[in-house]
């Protein structure tokens, strides 16, 4: 299975729709163990991302991802801005100059993104952050043929798993034990992102 730059663009558009739709829910999650702005941050960032991609005929996947990265870095405001921005920027380096990538090349991009998030946030798996969705998704795309429903399931279960974790990084870490039993907002937005990817890839195959 290959992934095309048209699918990458559709991915970003669908992610935006999900961020808009779940804006209040994401902020509600952030309210409990943070400052209540995660939905606001993500909705604004992705809105601007699709605005700048809309009239753009860029075919280079790397360039599309880089443009999205720069917009997220500029517009998100919260911790999730540099984190998603760095993730996209690192992936863009791997996909530079390509209009289509193999499953292996796609996984390499996600791997670079995960490394980027780790470096930027000085975080590890199990710290109740978006990494706790990105890492299981990375392992999935590295080891399995990408089946959309399986991808969504992987991301969803990983997201749900953050409810059992105690935050060690970011604002939620101030809440210590109290953060346990709440879902991590960044993990939830990452689940939405990968659900969007699954749907973007599905539509392409149907079409």
């Amino acid at each position: 299975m290959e992934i095309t730059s048209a699918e990458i663009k559709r991915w970003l558009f669908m992610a935006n729709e999900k961020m808009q739709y779940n804006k209040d829910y994401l902020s509600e999650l952030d309210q409990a163990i943070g400052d209540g702005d995660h939905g606001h941050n993500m909705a604004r960032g992705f809105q601007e991302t699709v605005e700048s991609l809309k009239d753009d005929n860029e075919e280079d996947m790397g360039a599309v991802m880089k443009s999205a990265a720069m917009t997220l870095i500029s517009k998100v405001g919260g911790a999730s801005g540099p984190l998603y921005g760095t993730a996209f920027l690192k992936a863009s380096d791997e996909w530079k100059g390509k209009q289509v990538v193999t499953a292996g090349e796609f996984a390499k991009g996600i791997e670079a993104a995960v490394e980027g998030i780790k470096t930027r946030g000085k975080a590890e798996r199990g710290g109740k952050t978006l990494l706790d969705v990105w890492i299981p998704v990375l392992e999935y795309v590295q080891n399995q043929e990408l089946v959309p429903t399986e991808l969504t399931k992987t991301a969803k279960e990983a997201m749900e798993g953050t409810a059992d974790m105690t935050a060690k990084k970011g604002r939620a870490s101030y809440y210590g034990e109290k953060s346990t039993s709440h879902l991590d907002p960044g993990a939830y937005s990452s689940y939405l992102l990968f659900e969007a990817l699954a749907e973007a890839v599905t539509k392409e195959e149907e079409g």
Partner: protein
Amino acid sequence: MNKAAVVVISHSAKIAEGIVDLVSQTKQPDVQVFSAGGTEAGEIGTSADKIKAVLEQADGEGGVLVFYDIGSAVMNAELALDMLPDLEGGVEIMDAPIVEGTYVAVVEAGMGKALEEVAEAVRRQEFVK
């Protein structure tokens, strides 16, 4: 030689500007202090673009000390630095209390100490007052 400069990154523009007001009162000759507070939209948060612009302004052979308040500020600071591979002087991102640390750094930089010495002095400072 140029003295070390200081950059103050806060989620709140008021905090960052207030710190500049506070330390400017110590009127350290030739110590430049810059603020990068809030998001582009003027909300609570930080902005890698703002920080990048301020780091470019602050850059010089004396180097720059960077102070920040909470979490995402340091991520945006490091991201901004990644985008600035060609700065003239060194940059030290300080894990110190933003108000108290900046105060000490401005005093120490004012004495003409080099970037590394200023950073050392800030680290040595006990922040239980």
